[in-house]
């Protein structure tokens, strides 16, 4: 069950030294020839390039729409993913429906790829429910807000897949800040020991609220995993093709029974941490500008233009899709009402609970005591 040092070393060679950043598409929109990775996306057709473009545009639209809804007071809070579209779409689009996602709160583009009902995306942020969706419907757990906790859940789920003898994979999404949590390190240790089919997908967006990644790590985050016996890759997180390639390599290793892989997707949080954050207190506008120039959508747009794939129909259909998605989400949001009072007692337990039933019954009596009043 435990892997030998040699195997691990081979894996490391296979994946190259974590420090070089994998890139297949430059900010200028040029394809990069990289033998060890481009083969993993060689099958991506022009059409699929177009749909990746659509996904990213739609994801950004969902994000800006939700941000607007929060500004209008329709949502209590929203954690923008602005700038991280390639990291999320590129990875999530490589997953199979029988794979399972354990994410944090910012992975709404991932949820979109998993086929989430758009209304479900805003449910929790509107405060009308504890849960957005049924994890088993879309193969994605409801987000973990406790930083890092979900990485262990992904590892356990992966061990379960292993026991079931299936080649499904669990993928954990987490941030650069999360890598400081004990849970994330323990997840790597458990995953390595049991050779679990799990992918650790770290979106290094340079910030943990106001804390720069340099406070969490004094070396590239991808450097850590190898020490735990987990091969890692450091990929340009704003390059949807590179992200796809890296994720496919990781998924392939997991399905082949080679165990966990760690991916550091180097990207940037272009928006505030959440709608209640004020980045002007800590973000350097110049750095922000540098990253704006590396925008994931623009670079793919440039490629599509250059290769003549950005036909008017595509532009039009993408816009139409984005509008439709935004409208569906907005309408769904408006339709979300406060739940009935006594539902506050639901789902605490799966089986009858004498104490809670008594409490519920007493509160029902309390509510009843107001009936007839004004």
């Amino acid at each position, binding site marked *: 069950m435990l892997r030998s040092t040699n195997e691990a070393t081979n894996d490391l060679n296979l994946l190259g030294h974590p420090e070089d950043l994998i890139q297949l598409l430059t900010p200028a929109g040029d394809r990069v020839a990289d033998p060890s990775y481009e083969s993993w996306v060689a099958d991506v057709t022009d059409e699929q390039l177009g749909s990746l473009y659509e996904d990213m545009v739609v994801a950004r639209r969902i994000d800006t729409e939700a941000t607007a809804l929060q500004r209008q007071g329709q949502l209590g809070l929203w954690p923008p993913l602005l700038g991280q579209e390639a990291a999320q779409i590129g990875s999530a689009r490589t997953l199979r429906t029988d794979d399972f996602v354990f994410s944090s709160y910012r992975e709404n583009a991932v949820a979109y790829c998993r086929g989430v009902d758009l209304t479900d995306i805003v449910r929790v942020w509107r405060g009308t429910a504890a849960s957005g969706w049924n994890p088993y419907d879309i193969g994605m757990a409801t987000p973990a807000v406790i930083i890092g906790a979900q990485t262990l*859940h992904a590892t356990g789920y992966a061990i379960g897949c292993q026991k079931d003898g299936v080649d499904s994979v669990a993928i954990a999404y987490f941030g650069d800040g999360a890598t400081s949590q004990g849970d994330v390190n323990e997840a790597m240790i458990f995953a390595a020991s*049991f050779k679990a089919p799990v992918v650790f997908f770290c979106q290094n967006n340079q910030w943990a609220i106001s804390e720069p990644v340099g406070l969490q790590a004094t070396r590239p985050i991808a450097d850590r995993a190898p020490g735990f016996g987990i091969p890692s890759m450091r990929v340009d997180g704003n390059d949807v093709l590179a992200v796809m390639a890296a994720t496919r390599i990781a998924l392939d290793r997991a399905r082949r029974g080679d165990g966990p892989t760690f991916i550091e997707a180097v990207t940037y949080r272009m928006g505030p941490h959440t709608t209640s954050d004020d980045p002007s207190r800590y973000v350097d506008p110049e750095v922000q500008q540098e990253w704006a120039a590396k925008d994931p959508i623009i670079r793919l747009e440039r490629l599509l233009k250059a290769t003549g794939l950005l036909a008017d129909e595509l532009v039009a259909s993408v816009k139409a899709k984005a509008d439709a998605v935004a409208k569906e989400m907005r309408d769904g949001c408006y339709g979300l009402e406060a739940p009935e009072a006594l539902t506050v007692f639901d789902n605490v337990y799966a089986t009858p609970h004498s104490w809670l039933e008594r409490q519920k019954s007493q509160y029902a009596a309390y509510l009843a005591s107001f009936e007839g009043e004004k």
Partner: protein
Amino acid sequence: MAQQSLSGAINTGLRRALADDPKVVLLGEDIGTLGGVFRVTDGLQKEFGTDRVMDTPLAEAGILGTAVGLAFRGYRPVVEIQFDGFIYPAFDQIVAQVAKLHYRTGGNVKMPITIRVPYGGGIGAVEHHSESPEAYFAHTAGLRVVTCSNPQDAHTMIRQAIACDDPVLFFEPKRRYWVKGEVNEDLDEQTVSMERAHTVQEGTDVTLVAYGPLVITARDAALAAADEGISVEVIDLRSLAPIDFAAVEASVRKTGRLVITHEASQYGGIGAEVAASITERCFYHLESAPARVTGFDVPYPAAKLEEHHLPDLDRILDAVDRVMGRENSLTGWSA
């Protein structure tokens, strides 16, 4: 129907659970080859394999977090925490994840995780090996907390805990691991239920509520009290969250007096909830204020001091005298 020790009864209960349900998996430190430091899982890895009985890396948060993922996948993880004092590194995973996931997922994801915890003192151990942390978990919505006091209950209750679709903290009174008793492996819910309190001995003057390691002590105290002409009814709670208050209430309505005992610290302990709830439910039947006989509000002391820290027969009798209005150690005492 054979004699089994309390630890042996849990072992046979785990064996039955592993045999009955392929989704049951055991996780913990040293539970495989070694069979656990208390041998509670002895022989199980040999019998069911390393896939069903897994030794894990030395990290409690990792163990519980992994169990959560296994539960997501449809498994029924049974986790062993080696000693009571080592459960805290897993506190976040237990309180923020295990306890809340069913609620968080709108009831779609079940967390049928059993967390076995050898607990309590009286074995002359060093720090962190004699604690009673049950109140932390009883105060946490989403968790169930139970504890056993004899081999029969231990066997039946561990299987009920594993079969339960809710997460269950299963506290094992380590100093009673070697107590032997008859165990019928085929008892039904009606006879022994982890949710229902058990009246160990009937009485009419005082209701003495105990659980886990102190049930034996409480029963002995009741016998001693009888010699002094006091009829004590002893109730073994079994479930600490929720508590079977209907049973305790019925008893107190009869006796009018209540004494609660546990090894855990008193301040904010289970005893406080029993006293508060029972006072709420049968205030007008109470002849005197409920009394608590518990461990002191100190870190678990050095072995040579634990005899003072742990409630014993004399301290319980002193409280019985107090609720009976007889002379006791606090007669004439003032702060």
